[in-house]
């Protein structure tokens, strides 16, 4: 794609927004690594640098009422979706101000208000959930979409095949996005995957599928856009394989015996952020504008760390608080029979949010 063509028709602020998100993720992740080394963050920490164009390009095209299910390398997706860097960092620190109130950690970021439906740490385990939420969308008759993000490692799990089949037979509004970063932990995809072009596996389930350059934010954005448009028109699920690469190890514990430094360097030469900056400069953006973004994300990440440091850990008294959700059944003695509930239909009410709020407040009331 030529530069002119690639940026044509995209508003300036939106282009800068894409760069901002990618730069924020890069900076955030490097800071997270530093905080891990300093013992502020514990457990597993899976970082996203190298893959920013995939997550940002994808999520930039989603509507507020679309759902995202992700995997355990999901900090980038969360930030791209607009979760506050402060609250994401606080979650990594295990603080009560974190997006999952400190109960989830790095692998389990969640924000219901942004329909960021969680990072899942069992490979492929989020795919059936995404299908189910898409089924709810279909049943409620709205035109929003569920996105399932997973890695190349997930495609040899039964859940992958079962989910693609289910989505295809029921024509569910799901966009499957495989972030193929070439390694499942330390094992190269070619050693363990019978079909090297993963996107072709989706074709056999009868869905539209394509492979894109996951290091090019505009290409990802463009293909996602087209796929979403078709899904919203009830044409059934679609599949995108984004070819990408992670610069860092699988997790902070990874000594990286399985790959050559030269391979990493080769991928770094097509770094998604630098590539996009080049595109913008050639499209008449000013150096200063781009530098301002770097300064802005530095400040945001510093703020995030300060916020996380200053926040409290969850009080011990809350240890068992959320094992069970409150229910009408808990008040059985005094409760009256519940009001009949009508499922919301789009033709009756285009305001999906109102329905959500009603159902949320019902839970509260319960």
């Amino acid at each position, binding site marked *: 794609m030529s530069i002119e063509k690639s940026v044509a028709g995209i508003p300036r602020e939106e282009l800068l927004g894409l760069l901002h998100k990618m730069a924020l993720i890069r900076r955030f992740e490097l800071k997270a690594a530093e905080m891990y080394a300093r013992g502020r963050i514990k457990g597993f920490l899976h970082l996203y640098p190298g893959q920013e164009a995939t997550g940002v390009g994808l999520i930039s095209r989603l509507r507020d009422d679309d759902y995202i299910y992700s995997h355990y390398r999901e900090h980038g997706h969360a930030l791209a979706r607009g979760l506050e860097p402060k609250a994401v960092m606080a979650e990594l620190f295990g603080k009560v101000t974190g997006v999952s109130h400190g109960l989830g950690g790095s692998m389990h970021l969640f924000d219901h208000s942004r329909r960021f439906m969680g990072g899942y740490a069992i490979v492929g385990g989020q795919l059936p959930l995404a299908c*189910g939420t898409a*089924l*709810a969308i279909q049943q409620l008759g709205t035109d929003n979409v569920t996105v399932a993000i997973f890695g190349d490692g997930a495609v040899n799990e039964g*859940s992958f095949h*079962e989910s693609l089949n289910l989505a295809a037979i029921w024509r569910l509004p799901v966009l499957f996005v495989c972030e193929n970063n070439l390694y499942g932990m330390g094992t190269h995809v070619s050693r363990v995957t019978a079909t090297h072009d993963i996107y072709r596996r989706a074709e056999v389930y009868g869905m539209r599928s394509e492979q894109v350059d996951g290091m090019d934010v505009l290409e990802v954005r463009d293909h996602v856009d087209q796929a979403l448009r078709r899904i919203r028109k009830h044409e059934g699920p679609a599949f995108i394989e984004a070819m990408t690469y992670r610069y860092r190890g699988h997790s902070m514990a990874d000594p990286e015996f399985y790959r050559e430094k030269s391979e990493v360097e080769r991928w770094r030469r097509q770094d998604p952020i630098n590539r996009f900056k080049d595109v913008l400069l050639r499209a008449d953006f000013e150096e200063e504008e781009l530098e301002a973004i770097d300064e802005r994300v530095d400040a945001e990440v510093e703020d995030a760390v300060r916020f996380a440091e200053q926040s409290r850990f969850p009080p011990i008294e809350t240890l068992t608080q959320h094992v069970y*959700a409150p229910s009408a*059944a808990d008040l059985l003695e005094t409760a009256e029979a*519940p009001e009949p509930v009508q499922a919301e239909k789009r033709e009756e009410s285009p305001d999906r949010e109102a329905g959500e709020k009603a159902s949320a407040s019902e839970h509260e009331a319960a």
Partner: protein
Amino acid sequence: MAELAIRDALRDAIREQMVIDERVIVMGEDVGAYGGSYGVTKGLLDEFGPERIRDTPISELAFVGAGIGAAIGGLRPIIEIMTINFSFLALDQIINNASKIHYMFGGQVPVPVIIRMASGAGLSLGAQHSHSLEGWFAHIPGLKVVCPSTAGDAKGLLRTAFEDNNPIIFIENTALYGVKGEVPEGDYRVPFGEVRIAREGSDATVIGYSGSVPQALGAADRLAEEDIEAEVLDLRTLQPLDTHGVVESVRKTHRAVVVEHDWRSGGFGAELAARIQELAFDDLDAPVARVAGVEVPMPYSFELEKAALPSEAQVVDAVRAMF
């Protein structure tokens, strides 16, 4: 009061709920055109159509996970897993997702899904179709485990499950589907975490759940002929567990026998025995006894299968030995 078989009582509860709540859907293998492997969903496809009564592929992992995802997305799904034996294929979804999502995401979203499954042995179904693993699910925080043994409880407990915002593992016993019992008319519910005193007695407490309740009652009849009055408790739900109700009875009778079709080691009976001795040690006149399955994969051959399951006679002997 109507006299209904358990399968019919369950179907009535589902139908009534589907009429008043459009968010309720039923998903599972052969729940539609076939009418359900055990006939629970028979006729529902005609009444509610294929969008709400969904036949699934044989993909337990996917359709159980999809039920969880649909609950998160605002539906109130009822998932039927044909038998508990097939639930093993979906354990990742049940344990890693359903039971944990509310907690690990800080209480932001409830998971109101009902996962029904048939359990139990005694029908010559062989080693892979005869598990009684209710206790497995009761081990997992975040799940509620319901296992009725009568038609009235089946309907009343299912109706309570509809009002619960948590994942419910609703276990039905294959041998009891056709057993008839009284089902109250109208709007009634059976609360979770409350034992049913299936027979009152003063000399020993015999505790059962699901398929072992009829045996406990049979044993009590035989003991009565010897002037031993056994009190029979049906736990009805393993999680939440009515520890108080169990202990109250044991304080009265001073003797306790737990009867279960599950294997003994690490079974739910061990948990009950532990709780009773923790809370009522001084009230006991004898150690808590367990009558459980023999620890073998279930054999097919009829007499062997019978020998592998607890019998009424064993329950009678266990109680007698306490005097």
